[in-house]
């Protein structure tokens, strides 16, 4: 199919940004494209190809030197190593993760140190004791003051009525930010409801967001009226202090003064503010402004850091796989972010290469899943708890509290457990099975979540008084009355079911082998699953040793999902990530926000949903932004990577071939190479990519609004100063070099989209 060049169609005036390109995806008539043969690979894989294949499938993409390293130890030995992550030294990653100390805290500690919005609200309303620890005291005091200031601001806005006109500027900003937009609209709608919980939650969220805008509005002169400012010399004086003294000053500041201080801080000073502080201190400074944000941001950032940097790559890949299989959603409610660190650290990661049943039980008991699929509230209708509630309600039929208390089952977890976690939708369960399973899990809940000082752990607890009495029947099995053991019995039935073995094997085969794996392969994996009692290592071993895994037909046949694309691009370019927040934002922009899949089915592992022209051009843009160091906090160094004699300004065809080998592991197609050679001198490309990547399509996704905010220095506050500020405060003003462009074009090429 010959496609006219743009300039043929438009009379040689092909101009303009690619924005237009980004917004339209066409469906091809009759699936023409998908049925055409993909760059056919028919010869058996060479030894080098085998190594590349293994790296592409079992890791987040090869880094420079990985291929040689696998060659040295041999493929099989390397695979065995990866199957046993406990034997692989991962100290370098742990050092990087030191920058996220909150991620090592238990739910209870997290909630205490970084009070969630509900707690702040309670404090603001009822007063009450703030912690005696001076740092925590400062966090609570500042967060409470922020809450109140914002509440006042909101009340004033409401009182002014014509808020839409008055805040025209704000509205414009808001509209660029779909998340804020959504929030704002919901907020407005919640107003008259009197639904206290939602109402407050929405307010908190509104606060959290406005909070972040404070610096920007202060800059625009709006904040000044509200909070006043501080003399530049005073600000300077604080910044000039030694780290210890500076931190001492910050926690000693009154909330009012802290607000003034922040409002007066210039963008470049934000980096200075946290310079030299320990990671815990940096967290504290951030938390004084928005404690919940610290938790959420670090949960997403640290997950990406692990994917990029762990030496235990197969473990990281499997952790990602299971986090998607047992999907939870960061925005489920304001508490969910607090449950994510433990979900990765305690639930998924330790079981990612273990027994499936252990993993299943761990997820069933995880606060993150209990919250996400509502089981924490599910109560047996004939349980003591429900009986008591009903009694209270009978006495006071209009009593709000009794009405709001759960008194029956919620089927959500039971259904998705069978449909998505184990048997699969055709797995032979009925609606009655859903109900019976839900009954078995009544009482599986979270230890009085989100109250501090009650001794509650925020972890899993089985509450017998919520449990539905009686014998249950699940999938033909009789489950004798047995409290907590009933749920375990259900999980055992499910974990050992052939339907589960098949369903999980199929999904693994799609992730690792092919969008359409051969039934023989899946059956072999499922057989191993059953024989080994769901030993994930054994199932992966069967897969790795199957001829289907090494078939030329599957070589480079998988299209990367955005997470695979982004991590492999960072790894291939050996980029140094000091601040992963812009990468987190890029994930949203690329259509796969971290912990951002709202529905419990998780993201698709197949190509279909990821290859629209929208998506692919975003990848091209990201590649150029990354390669040209336009992404704050992530540094590439092409000259160092390519070695002596490489010209940054005038790279040769030889350099291009060197880059192909390094980034693609193979020569590029003629068309790709010709394009790279024709375009690499267009060093404006990075700037254009940056503009597009940060501005494109509004209203489509929250990611790009997050990205577009990257240009506002205020936005980088949480991230940038934090991990040492290596990327500088904002975007590199230097134009991209031809070498950068050359590398970026290759990372954006069709070849790099495959693994």
């Amino acid at each position, binding site marked *: 199919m010959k496609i006219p060049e743009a300039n043929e169609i438009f009379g040689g005036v092909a101009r*303009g940004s690619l924005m237009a390109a980004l917004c339209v995806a066409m469906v091809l008539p009759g699936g023409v494209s998908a049925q055409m043969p993909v760059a056919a690979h028919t010869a058996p894989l060479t030894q080098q190809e085998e190594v590349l294949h293994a790296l592409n499938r079992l890791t987040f993409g090869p880094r420079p030197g990985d291929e040689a390293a696998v060659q040295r130890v041999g493929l099989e030995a390397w695979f065995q190593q990866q199957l046993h992550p406990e034997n692989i030294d991962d100290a370098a990653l742990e050092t990087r993760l030191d920058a996220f100390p909150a991620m090592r805290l238990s739910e209870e500690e997290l909630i205490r140190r970084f009070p969630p919005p509900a707690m702040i609200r309670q404090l603001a309303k009822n007063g009450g004791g703030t912690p005696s620890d001076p740092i925590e005291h400062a966090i609570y005091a500042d967060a409470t003051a922020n809450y109140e200031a914002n509440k006042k601001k909101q009340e004033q806005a409401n009182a002014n009525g014509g808020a839409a006109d008055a805040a025209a500027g704000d509205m414009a900003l808001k509209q660029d930010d779909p998340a804020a937009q959504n929030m704002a609209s*919901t907020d407005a709608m919640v107003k008259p409801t009197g639904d206290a919980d939602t109402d407050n939650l929405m307010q908190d969220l509104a606060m959290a967001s406005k909070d972040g805008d404070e610096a920007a509005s202060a800059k625009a002169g709006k904040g000044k009226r509200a909070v006043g400012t501080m003399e530049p010399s005073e600000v300077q004086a604080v910044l000039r202090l030694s780290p210890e003294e500076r931190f001492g000053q910050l926690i000693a500041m009154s909330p009012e003064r802290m607000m003034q201080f922040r409002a007066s801080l210039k963008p470049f000073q934000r980096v200075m503010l946290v310079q030299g502080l320990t990671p815990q201190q940096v967290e504290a400074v951030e938390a004084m402004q928005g404690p919940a944000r610290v938790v959420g941001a670090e949960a997403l950032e640290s997950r990406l850091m692990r994917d990029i940097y762990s030496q235990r790559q197969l473990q990281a890949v499997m952790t990602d796989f299971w986090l998607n299989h047992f999907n939870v959603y960061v925005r489920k409610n304001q508490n969910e*972010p607090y449950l994510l660190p433990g979900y990765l650290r305690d639930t998924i990661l330790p079981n990612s290469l273990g027994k499936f049943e252990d993993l299943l039980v761990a997820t069933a008991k995880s606060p993150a899943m209990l919250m996400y699929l509502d089981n924490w509230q599910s109560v047996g209708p004939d349980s003591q708890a429900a009986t008591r509630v009903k009694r209270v309600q009978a006495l006071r039929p209009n009593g709000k509290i009794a009405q709001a208390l759960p008194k029956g089952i919620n089927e959500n977890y039971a259904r998705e457990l069978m449909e998505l976690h184990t048997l699969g939708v055709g797995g032979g369960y009925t609606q009655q099975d859903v109900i019976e399973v839900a009954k078995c899990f009544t009482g599986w809940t979270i230890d009085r979540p989100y109250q501090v000082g009650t001794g509650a752990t925020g972890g899993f607890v089985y509450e017998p008084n919520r449990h539905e009495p009686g014998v249950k029947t699940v999938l033909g099995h009789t489950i004798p009355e047995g409290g907590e053991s009933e749920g375990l019995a259900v999980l055992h039935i499910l974990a050992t079911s052939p339907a589960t073995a098949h369903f999980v094997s199929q999904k693994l085969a799609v992730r690792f082998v092919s969008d359409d794996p051969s039934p023989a392969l899946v059956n072999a994996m499922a057989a191993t699953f059953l024989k080994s009692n769901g030993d994930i290592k054994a199932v992966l071993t069967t897969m790795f040793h199957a001829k289907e895994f090494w078939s030329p037909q599957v070589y480079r046949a998988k299209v990367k999902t955005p997470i695979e694309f982004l991590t492999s691009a960072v790894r291939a370019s050996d980029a140094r990530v000091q601040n992963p927040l812009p990468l987190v934002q890029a994930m949203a922009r690329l259509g796969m926000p971290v912990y951002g899949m709202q529905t419990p089915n998780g993201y698709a592992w197949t190509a279909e949903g990821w290859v629209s022209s929208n*998506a692919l051009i975003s990848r*091209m843009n990201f590649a150029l932004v990354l390669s040209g160091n336009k992404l704050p906090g992530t540094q590439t160094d092409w000259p160092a990577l390519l070695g002596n004699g490489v010209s940054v300004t005038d790279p040769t065809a030889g350099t291009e071939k060197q880059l192909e080998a390094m980034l693609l592991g193979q020569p590029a197609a003629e068309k790709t190479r010709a*394009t790279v050679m024709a375009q690499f001198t267009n060093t404006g490309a990075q700037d*254009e990519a940056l503009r597009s990547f940060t501005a494109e399509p509004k209203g*489509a996704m929250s990611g790009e609004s997050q990205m577009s905010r990257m240009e506002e220095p205020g936005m980088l506050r949480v991230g940038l100063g934090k991990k040492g500020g290596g990327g500088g405060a904002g975007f590199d003003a230097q134009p991209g070099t031809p070498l950068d462009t050359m590398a970026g074009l290759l990372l954006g090429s069709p070849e790099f989209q495959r693994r």
Partner: protein
Amino acid sequence: MAKTIFTDASDWGCDMGGRDVARRNTVTRRGFMRNGALALVGTSVIPSFLTRSIYAEMQKASVNKKKLVVVFQRGACDGLNVVVPYQEKNYYTMRPSIAIKQNEVLDLNGFFGLHPQMAAFKPLYDQGHLAIVHAAGSPDPSRSHFDAQDYMESGTPGVKVTQDGWLNRALQSAHEDKPSAFRAVALGTQVPRTLQGKVPAIAVANLQDFSVAGKGPQTSPISNAFQSMYDESTDAMLHGTGQETFEAVKMLKAADPASYKPAAGVVYPNGAFGNSLKQVAQLMKANLGVEAAFSDIGGWDTHQNQGAANGQLANRLKEFSESIAAFWKDMGDEAENITLVTMSEFGRTARQNGTGGTDHGHANVMFVLGGAVKGGKVYGKWPGLSDDQLNEGRDLKVTTDFRNVLAEAAYKSLGARNLQAIFPGAPVDPGTFLNLA
């Protein structure tokens, strides 16, 4: 920024990826979306002779065209709290804390009443533009969101192998000599299952960006690079055919739909759904030859704490009804030619569950809005809500096959005649129609 991580408070379980939360636009539903990866690359200045010919095309495409807009409420909307059977005693028995009280509903006909947050729909109903079909749904009993949505979008309940969507087949049936590139358009980044098939369909995430693109004076090296790499890539999955896409870009450039502002006094609610419908209106007003448009809205999976007259579901319904009402008003006289139909994969349990919400049920309510619609009436046979009248003892029974409603909409708006091709094996023909229009 991290702060936006916390801005979605949807508190309802396994919510289905609709597009009300903007982020969801980027997320591919599990499903069967096939996108030609068309390298659609930047263009901004169009020679005037071309513009003129494009305008001519557009005029032709838009002559007296009836248009069908399909709205999918993903996540299984609780129809019993949308159009409330407030005379059913058992409704109140089964929903002690989430029922809409008799004195709260917006009465429709002495038996049914609208949810109070749907006041925007009341005048449309009273004026006879809005028809309601209650107890509509799928003959397939699945309570899986993913299967049930897929069946509704393919139009073939119980059949998983169907490759295309019912709306695409409806367009095939109503054939067109020189179709516009915008004949079938979905708001979002992916073409949904409903619109997939032989007739080229286009997904538009945001029109505004098209006009933004037109203002940039500089050339676009990335566009060129992208186009040449991907258009002619040997990689079939990643390359595309381009032609229709270029056509679409040209048309958008010429028509500049983003310049169409909502009619005086029309305010679309903030949020992705309102924004989608606003863009549908812009495309239609720009005479781009739109015949079928698709949009969706999520957030209906109210397993927990769904609220009653106020609360989570109420908020959703307000946004839903106000967006549609704004669209209707915005279209002005053009509304005469429009038919809008809404659907959701299944309803929810007649009884509230133990956590102030409802679980997956069966029949639901559909709305049909249009110039030619005989509205002001609740259609369909009401199956009743007493315990012995419920489906499997727990849900509203289906008395109208959803395909019957869609078939009539396609027949009367798009002029689709071959109903058996659109809904193979379905018991639908003009004789079964509810005579909604």
